[in-house]
């Protein structure tokens, strides 16, 4: 008995210590290359299809209730004719030091050992705390139980829960696909390998801007891309330690813009 307790204690001690993630099986990571991304939003529709995101209509869009778990933000710099528009896909950053996890009174959102920030719909009581704490505005709340006009509901993905009123949700890194990959790997007595699964957004991306994989695997594509000199993380100064790594867009500074935006 005491053996088990000691082991549990060791495990807990290793968890949440800097570098803990290398001690576990996987560290799921996403790399988004902003020099490839052309802002086409194929990823957004892919996410709607895969994760049963409801369509809320114009009125609800107007009061920011749109459900997209991944969105493209656009920033316009300069004035005509010297204009630049920049795009960035933003989804849950699966922070290792996630502000949302601290706030939840019922542990509906917590960190799993693969580095995922997960949301347990059954636990969620809808206090909205996580969404308030979130640095990246990626959490979406079910103000209603949304309906699909028949027969559109026939498209719903049975691998993903259809959420109900009062529940908070967000990008899961397509945990249902990770689950399948892990189960298959387990059946075959191995670890999940590069290429076993893709997230829906990654799968659809025409320019190959999104790459998903295991940062603990030194040979994975994400591990290689994560070493890029163009690497940065979103609002890194806030120390949320996100699992999403962006690669800077290669872009001329605008003429006459003294400072530019490059910190590279």
């Amino acid at each position, binding site marked *: 008995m005491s053996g088990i307790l000691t082991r549990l204690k060791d495990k807990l001690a290793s968890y949440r210590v800097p570098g803990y993630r290398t001690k576990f099986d996987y560290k799921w990571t996403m790399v988004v*290359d902003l*020099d*490839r991304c*052309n*802002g*086409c*939003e*194929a990823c*957004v*529709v892919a996410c*709607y*299809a895969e994760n049963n995101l409801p*369509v809320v*209509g*114009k009125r609800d*869009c107007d009061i920011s209730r*749109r459900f997209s778990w991944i*969105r493209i*933000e*656009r*920033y*316009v710099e*300069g*004035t*005509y*004719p010297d*204009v630049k*528009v*920049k795009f960035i896909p933003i989804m849950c950053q699966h922070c290792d030091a996630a502000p949302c996890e601290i706030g939840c009174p019922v542990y509906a959102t917590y960190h799993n050992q693969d580095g995922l920030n997960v949301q347990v719909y059954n636990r969620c009581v809808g206090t909205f705390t996580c969404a308030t704490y979130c640095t990246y505005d990626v959490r979406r709340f079910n103000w209603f139980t949304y309906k699909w*006009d028949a*027969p*559109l509901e*026939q*498209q*719903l*993905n*049975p691998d993903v829960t259809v959420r109900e009123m009062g529940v908070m949700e967000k990008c899961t890194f397509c945990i249902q696909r990770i689950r399948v990959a892990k189960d298959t790997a387990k059946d075959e007595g191995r670890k999940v390998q590069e290429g076993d699964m893709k997230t*829906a957004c990654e*799968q*659809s991306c*025409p*320019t190959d*801007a999104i790459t998903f994989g295991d940062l603990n695997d030194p040979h994975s*594509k994400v591990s*290689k*891309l994560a070493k*890029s000199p*163009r690497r940065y993380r*979103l*609002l890194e100064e806030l120390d949320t330690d996100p699992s999403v790594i962006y*690669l800077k867009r*290669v*872009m*001329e*500074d605008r003429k006459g813009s003294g400072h*530019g*935006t*490059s*910190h*590279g």
Partner: protein
Amino acid sequence: MKRRDFLKFIGAGGIGTGLGILFGQAIKPPGSKLIPYLIPPEDVIPGLANWYASLCTQCSAGCGVLVKVMDGRAKKVEGNPLHPVSNGKLCVRGQSGVQTLYNPDRITGPMKRKGARGSNSFEPISWDEAIREVSGKLKELSSKGEAEKLYLLSSSLGGHLGMLADDFMAGFGSSNSIKYDLFDNRNLRYANKSTMGLDAIPHYDIENTQYLLSFGADFASTWLSPVALSRGYGEMRQGGHSARGKFVQVEPRLSLTAANADDWVPAKPGTEAILALAIAREIVESGHYKGSDVSAWKSLLAPFGRTYAAGVTDVDKGKIRTIAKEFMNARPSLAIGGESISGYSNGVSGLVAINILNHVAGNLGIEGGVQPNSSDLFAGRRADRVGPGIDALIKAANGSGIGLLLHYNNNPAFTTPGSAHAVEAIKNVPYIASFSSFMDETTALADIILPSHTSFEDWGDDFTDPAPGFQVATLMQPVVSPVFKTRSLGDTIIGLGKGVGGAAAAKMPEGTYAEHLKDSWSGLYTRNKAMNASELTFERFWRDTLAKGGWWKESKPKMSKLKVSARSAARHISKEPAKFEGDNSQYPLYLIPYAQAGHLDGRGANVPWLQELPDPITSVVWGSWVEINPKTASRLGVKMGDMVEIESPYGKILSPVFVYEGIRPDTVAVPIGQGHKLYGRYAENRGANPLEVLPPTVDSRTGAYALNSTRVRIVKTGRPGDLVKMDVSTDELGRNIVQTVPPGGAPHKDTSHH
């Protein structure tokens, strides 16, 4: 339920069962509905997905897709990773195919008009009645000796369906097949045919180019083959094989594609062709062009001097020179043109100018340049896609030249300029039968509707055009059983042909369209050495091809010699800018209506996902808008969201203002796609259709409507608009969200990728 009711229910069930036994097959016992999974269909395991290879028909690019099917329902569409066009990727519209399939506003079965024409009042009839009625009307027409008065109006039908339709028309005795889509690249095909002799659209090798100069081609959202070209774009920027390519976009409005360019050149609308020719002149004058006909080119391009061009195009002389230098020195470089440049009154001239540019820079027939596509597979039977345009149909309808109109899968009542009066013309046709799957503005004019399957319920094929440098034939197979009482268009045509009898019936194949498709492929297989080289039996080849999603043999594109002769080009170029309707003092602003990523020519507007998808540039959802430069807006005294009238000499529409830095101050732009009067609950009465204010200008060489051919004025209404945009701010407020690194400033290309 009360106990007595329950007993009644049991009793009724008992009687039903008894009758079932009495009548044998006539009434199946209730059990037959309960036990199907005791002996399940061969490849269905409840809870596990099957992926079927098929074809996307949301636009004409012809991407191969995989459809995820669980328990007989289509769940998700993804690109087919084996397919050389989609390469496993798919755009916003392609992925929405499932919402087209399960759209609540589909036409659920054959219907006959009840009220006045256009009143959208129909009553259901049976398929037999429908076929009988339409073939009766066809027979009537042919017995009057007016077979020539049969018109078929459809989108460009790819593959064997198009050939079957042609057979039907030929058998009936009519040659009036009108293919029409708003974005059918009619001008591009014509320009390429007349200057380079190309039948098929060539492969524009963006992936391997070092310098991409695009005139208006919005390939990130709608142009030609967005998925394939976007993949090429990603590789050009960060693919591992060569240095990062540079990209310059010329157009009056900063589109999604221009947002990705290193440089945006907002030339004055209608003068892009002159800019292209001025660049070509610089190249020829510099001595870069080494062809034997250099003197012919020199004299042809002589009028397009830098000073003249700068004055007309509003692009300064230095810039023209820089672009010319970079374009000829970067090897290989590539110029492409489409959408805005091909939408002027002289659209063909602009595209010819781009071919000239590629010719003099030496980009034709090379890797990273323009590569010809062959069309040998069809043995000369390729459906001619640059036939007469929709203007020919409107003329015929107005002159009582049409006795019976068959209509499928396009919507000219929505996608032609209001001033062309297509609706009024079509109303003149005595009898209209439509095969549409959705009730749109044109289908509502029909007398009878024989609704067709959507692509995931149907058989079909497509010979990809533009192909990726080698031939690609994609197969479409039904992945789910039909959701409603619709039919395969092929079967409807065969049914009508047989119903009519005579030569039309003789031209129709035995059996169903599915069988005909397989037979046709058997013919392809026998004829083409490349297909039967592996010496499989046809049955085996067919099975493999269905599983794979089609047939293609990846090969390096043939780098055959392409050239543009100065003589063929001379006919098409001119020093005059394109013409615009509307007097400059009355109507001071150029109008650019453009294809929007989600809705294309308006056909995406009935898909809820696409309505709620923010426009990539403005982030507007569920509506339309007019883009106005801030300087112009402040001069007019309007601000973001204000409702304004956009008025041309041909009419006016209402739209909320979107103030945008990425548009010329003398230009406004309105997306196409919204403003449907009919097209289901998600599309109807939402936003405005800019085509309503366009003049009926066509490029006389092709019959393609010129979208950018009028000036407009903006009139304040003083009311707020209904603009809903998802972006709160487009200013980073110093937070460095999208970080950048200048080219050359730091190592900017990853060799680790791929």
